[in-house]
């Protein structure tokens, strides 16, 4: 793949010019030669081949014939909406559709911003920028595409296809526009991503509570940056102008919040695949900084921090996730005496976050230990403060070294979201139970729905693993 290696796939420690690197010659074999060389090159290999081929063929045929001829996909086909969103109020389904479109746009914009940033960095480094060929992208996300294709093939109305096409189109347009943005404006794209992200969340959950604040903060940050671009006569004027920009945005957000209809569907009604797809990233986003903080605290020279962090990590890692989830249902409300009871989903995500952060802390600690002490000394000798040394010198190198382990943990967490079914939170696996509780699908199509659920998880986690491999190559992990 040497000819496909772009700037981003080269390791930081490796020469950047690798495109013309000579490669060992690859022998070309025609089919009979291949057979002889690979399958029948000795009497025992021939024996293994002769035994295994019929076994594999038989098993493959049985599986194929189950999928195509015997399987009865009606329970899946007729309950697709149920699998996707559970018992989400049907009158409010437009909110989910809007969320899908808005978040697709956010992903497209983020992708575009990432490409624009990468182009700017390549330009700064005086290197050519080459995008991954389309084929490589398709290969990377092929599993997900196949699942989406199967899903669309089973739908009975045009609705899902239109939603899918609309989401892809808006993502593609924003990706195109984003990737052609000038380097100095990329920050605004990220602000846009944040705004779309929050908007997508709130179009479903409404703007209850402090919704206007969540919406206002990313816009306010963007406004502050925008105002900061203008040249002011004095630093004080600049600071006042930025504060003014922030204030205006927050006031407008608050007024808009008071004026518009801001009812929504709370996240205690999130169900089905939608719940798995949301709970995992939320837990990841919450657990990651917590885990990094715990890892740093565990290596701290303050005994109190070290003891608390070590105690937390060892305690949580010694407890099965299921018992943590169950304890979450009964204990969290006991410790946090809130006036309104916390929803099951809040408790479940809290438990998932606590669990995952302990594991991430150990992974990050391993990464921190892999960075030699002299790196810290070099930072000290140029007068950097301890926190700056950790943030800019130790952590970037440490995190780079632990990407594979970290992604493994995220994959495990994604699959662990199915454990929510045990505490009667209606995730994808639990919804499968609801499907079979209906009279017409009782004891019918049980294997098929399981295959369906398994396939979805496989496609998601496989894509994550491919993405992690790409990241490893790009950052040159293991090339030292």
């Amino acid at each position: 793949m040497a000819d496909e290696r772009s700037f981003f796939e080269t390791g930081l420690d490796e020469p950047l010019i690798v495109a013309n690197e000579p490669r060992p010659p690859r022998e070309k074999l025609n089919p009979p030669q291949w057979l002889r060389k690979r399958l029948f090159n000795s009497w025992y290999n021939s024996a293994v081949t002769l035994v295994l081929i019929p076994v594999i063929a038989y098993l493959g045929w049985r599986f194929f014939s189950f999928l195509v001829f015997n399987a009865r996909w009606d329970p899946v086909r007729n309950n697709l909406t149920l699998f996707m969103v559970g018992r989400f109020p049907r009158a409010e389904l437009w909110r989910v559709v809007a969320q899908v479109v808005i978040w697709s746009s956010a992903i497209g914009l983020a992708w575009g911003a990432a490409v624009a940033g990468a182009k700017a960095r390549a330009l700064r480094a005086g290197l050519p920028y080459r995008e991954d060929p389309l084929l490589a992208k398709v290969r990377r996300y092929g599993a997900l595409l196949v699942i989406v294709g199967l899903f669309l093939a089973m739908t009975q109305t045009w609705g899902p296809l239109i939603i899918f096409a609309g989401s892809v189109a808006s993502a593609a347009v924003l990706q195109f526009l984003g990737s052609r943005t000038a380097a100095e404006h990329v920050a605004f794209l990220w602000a846009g991503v944040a705004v779309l992200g929050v908007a997508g969340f709130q179009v479903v959950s409404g703007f209850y509570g402090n919704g206007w604040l969540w919406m206002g903060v990313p816009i306010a940050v963007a406004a502050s940056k925008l105002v900061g671009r203008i040249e002011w006569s004095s630093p004080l004027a600049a600071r006042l102008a930025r504060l003014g920009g922030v204030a205006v945005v927050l006031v407008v957000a608050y007024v808009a919040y008071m004026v518009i209809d801001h009812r929504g569907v709370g996240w205690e009604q999130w169900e089905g695949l939608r719940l798995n797809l949301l709970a995992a990233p939320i837990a990841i986003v919450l657990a990651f900084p917590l885990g990094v903080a715990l890892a740093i605290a565990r290596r701290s020279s303050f005994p109190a921090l070290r003891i608390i962090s070590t105690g937390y990590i060892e305690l949580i890692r010694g407890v099965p996730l299921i018992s943590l989830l169950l304890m979450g249902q009964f204990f969290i409300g006991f410790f946090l005496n809130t006036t309104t009871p916390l929803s099951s989903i809040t408790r479940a995500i809290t438990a998932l976050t606590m669990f995952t952060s302990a594991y991430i802390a150990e992974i990050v600690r391993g990464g921190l230990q892999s960075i030699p002490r002299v790196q810290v000394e070099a930072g000290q000798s140029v007068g950097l403060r301890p926190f700056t040394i950790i943030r800019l010198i130790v952590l970037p190198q440490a995190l780079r070294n632990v990407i594979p382990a970290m992604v493994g943990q995220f994959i495990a967490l994604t699959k662990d979201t199915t454990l929510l079914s045990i505490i009667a939170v209606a995730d994808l696996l639990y919804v499968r139970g609801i499907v079979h509780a209906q009279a017409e699908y009782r004891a019918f199509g049980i294997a098929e729905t399981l295959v369906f659920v398994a396939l979805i998880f496989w496609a998601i986690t496989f894509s994550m693993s491919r993405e992690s491999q790409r990241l490893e190559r790009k950052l040159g992990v293991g090339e030292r």
Partner: protein
Amino acid sequence: MTDTTRDMARHRDEVFADATQVCGTGDVIIDIEGIDKFFGDFQALKGVEMKVGRQEVVVVCGPSGAGKSTLIRCINRLEKHDRGRIVVDGIELSDDIRNIQEVRLETGMVFQQFNLFPHLTVLDNITLGPRQARHMPRREAEDLAMSLLTRVKIPEQARKFPGQLSGGQQQRVAIARSLAMSPKVMLFDEPTSALDPEMIKEVLDVIQDLARSGMTMIIVSHEMGFAREVSDRVVFMADGEIVEVGTPEHFFENPREERTKLFISQIL
């Protein structure tokens, strides 16, 4: 060294009574008073007394395990001394983190193994200190970095990563990284020991250049020819003590102590 300066050196006392008499402009920038350093039960420094004058170049040499590295690592508090006093440009090193920080801002350090930050480009390696510790704007810091890279003769490597450079180039980047903080004193901890022979000269040239520009420097080195050329004083250490101090001429031609004679005969 020209003949006239050599004559002047002859007129001076050729042997310093101890390491607390300085050359250079005469005023003392580093004052080390009777420091002890222990690693567990092992005593690495035994009551070392030393002064360094402004603009003076001191080469520290001696057999391995003599405490040379430990001595200069104590000066910017990479190691904590257990007894005695270290004063750098009027700031006494104490446990106060602000004091330590101030001393580190005044001293640059170049390591044997370069210790560049492998995840940052050469340019970012150099600008990190000024931008983070001195709050210099990015543009200004990059201009400074480029001028320093020109000074160490590798401006064309600015956008590369350390792993793509040769050892000699990396060490020159490390020198530029220290200089970017405009230190008053530069400490060199065996700057050429990890280099291939053909790269030693390019690094020594840069250090010599610095010496000519009037930078105060303490250099731990085994490059005796180099020591002879650049240094005002040579300090010989063994077993955690300063054994002998002298002008380079005195030190190489007429050493007084038996241990010094033995060391010079082994190394030359």
